């Protein structure tokens, strides 16, 4: 998919809650070797939201920083799409609250998206269409989550919280989105039924026929359509449910460790679901220079992928200032908590709230 007009990222920012828990601490409670579990998943710690943080507060912080970085006012945002699988309301948009909090309401369109971990990048594509057609000047796409894993489940070692916001437009881009494509099938590898508190998953089924097949096919298709090879890219960002999968898929596709390292945040903050690729891309943009090319592929269970071919412009230098923290600076603010506090914060203690 290629837009008729040039379209790209005008600004971005990310936010990750400051609390952290280590796999060893989780394993201790469930009689498992959490340390080995963490090593297997290549996750050293995962972020935990405070009880007063959720997708709305995370999205709002990221959105405010994104606006501050490019000095864009709320009234200049024509659309807000928030992608998440942990929207605080089942019915009542996250996007309207974020819109009101950043002063973008009422002359704007808004909606919440859900496509497991790729709902944020689905918002990218929607905004690309709206701005390139001239319907709006700037669109905001946010990917954020505060996902939960059932107590004792393998997901509990990785399910984390965080998100990033992007302002998409056709002028003053710090990075041009030259091409995008998607790959979508009906693959039930991970799901959460209506009314259920925790998601279910197909164990190893989430790997080969789901994550690996979709990322490989979508990324190959993007490179074919944009006539590129892995060496044409300075960086690559792949969805990161753990620290193992993105490294493996990158290698399979012909990308080096150096290309994916800047955007590989999962080892420090865990799987931030819809926030994972947007945060990984933000961390990569933080250290990009004009002319750098970035390949991005987000994966959402259910299942589908969105790939992007991004080229950084000279404007990246202009927005590099001290006004907004880099992703590395954001995730450096960390406080480790024991499982007892984690259980309280994540409302896993019955009758405790």
């Amino acid at each position, binding site marked *: 998919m290629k837009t008729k007009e040039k379209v790209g990222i005008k600004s971005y920012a990310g936010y990750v809650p*400051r609390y952290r828990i280590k796999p060893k601490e989780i394993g201790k409670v469930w009689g498992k070797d959490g340390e080995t579990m963490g090593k297997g998943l290549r996750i050293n710690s995962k972020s935990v939201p*405070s*009880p*007063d*943080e*959720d997708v*709305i*507060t995370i999205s*709002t*912080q990221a959105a405010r920083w994104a606006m501050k970085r490019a000095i864009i006012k709320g009234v200049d945002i024509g659309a807000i799409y928030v992608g998440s699988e942990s929207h*605080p*309301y089942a019915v*009542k948009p996250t996007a309207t*609250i974020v819109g*009101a*909090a950043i*002063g973008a309401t009422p002359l704007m369109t808004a909606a919440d998206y859900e496509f497991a971990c790729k709902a944020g990048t689905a918002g990218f594509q929607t905004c690309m269409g709206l701005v390139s057609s001239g319907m709006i000047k700037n669109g905001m796409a946010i990917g954020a989550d505060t996902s939960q894993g059932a107590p004792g489940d393998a997901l509990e070692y990785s399910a984390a919280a965080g998100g990033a916001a992007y302002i998409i437009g056709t002028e003053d881009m710090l990075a041009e989105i030259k091409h995008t494509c998607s790959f979508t099938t009906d693959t039930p590898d991970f799901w959460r039924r209506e009314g259920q508190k925790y998601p279910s998953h197909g164990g190893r089924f989430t790997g080969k026929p789901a994550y690996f097949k979709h990322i490989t096919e979508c990324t190959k298709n993007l490179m074919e359509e944009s006539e590129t090879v892995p060496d044409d890219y300075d960086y690559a960002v792949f969805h990161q449910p753990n620290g193992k999968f993105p490294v493996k898929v990158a290698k399979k596709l012909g990308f080096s460790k150096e290309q994916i390292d800047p955007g590989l945040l999962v080892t420090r903050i865990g799987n931030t679901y819809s926030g994972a690729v947007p945060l990984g891309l933000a961390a990569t943009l933080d250290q990009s220079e004009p002319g750098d090319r970035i390949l991005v592929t987000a994966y959402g269970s259910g299942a589908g992928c969105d790939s992007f071919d991004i080229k950084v412009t000279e404007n990246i230098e202009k927005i590099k200032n*001290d*006004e*907004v*923290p880099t992703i590395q*600076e954001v995730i450096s*603010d960390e406080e480790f908590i024991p499982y007892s506090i984690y259980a*309280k*914060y994540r*409302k896993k203690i019955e009758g*405790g*709230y």
Partner: protein
Amino acid sequence: MTTPRFWREIEQRYRGIGVQCEICDRVYFPPREICPHCRRESFGKMNERELSGKGKVLTYTEVHDPHPDFKLLTPYIMAIIEMEEDVRVTGQLVGVDYKDVETGMEVKATMRRLGEESPEGIIYYGYKFAPVKDKHE
């Protein structure tokens, strides 16, 4: 708090929208219809003013007997913040331990979940204050 009452105050709670008197330039938060200093002269001359969100801790205390909405955060810190605009706002301090708080500490408003009507009811969002830790705020 009823839903309409919360809804009426969204601008204040989400964005710190106060008012400024056109005559004496004093800022008020929450908004007032007239300026207590300029009285009737200020009628119709109170303009919307968004607070910067930046301020300093004027005084603070630690709460051990919580409001039910803050039970999971107990003990928590409440503070009166002297805002840049010379108005005082009461709010909770987050992201900092009580032992590390001091009078005069620079803080910045951040949007957080304040509570909820009920498990089925609406969620209240609004400002709390976090310490300014580095160059960014």
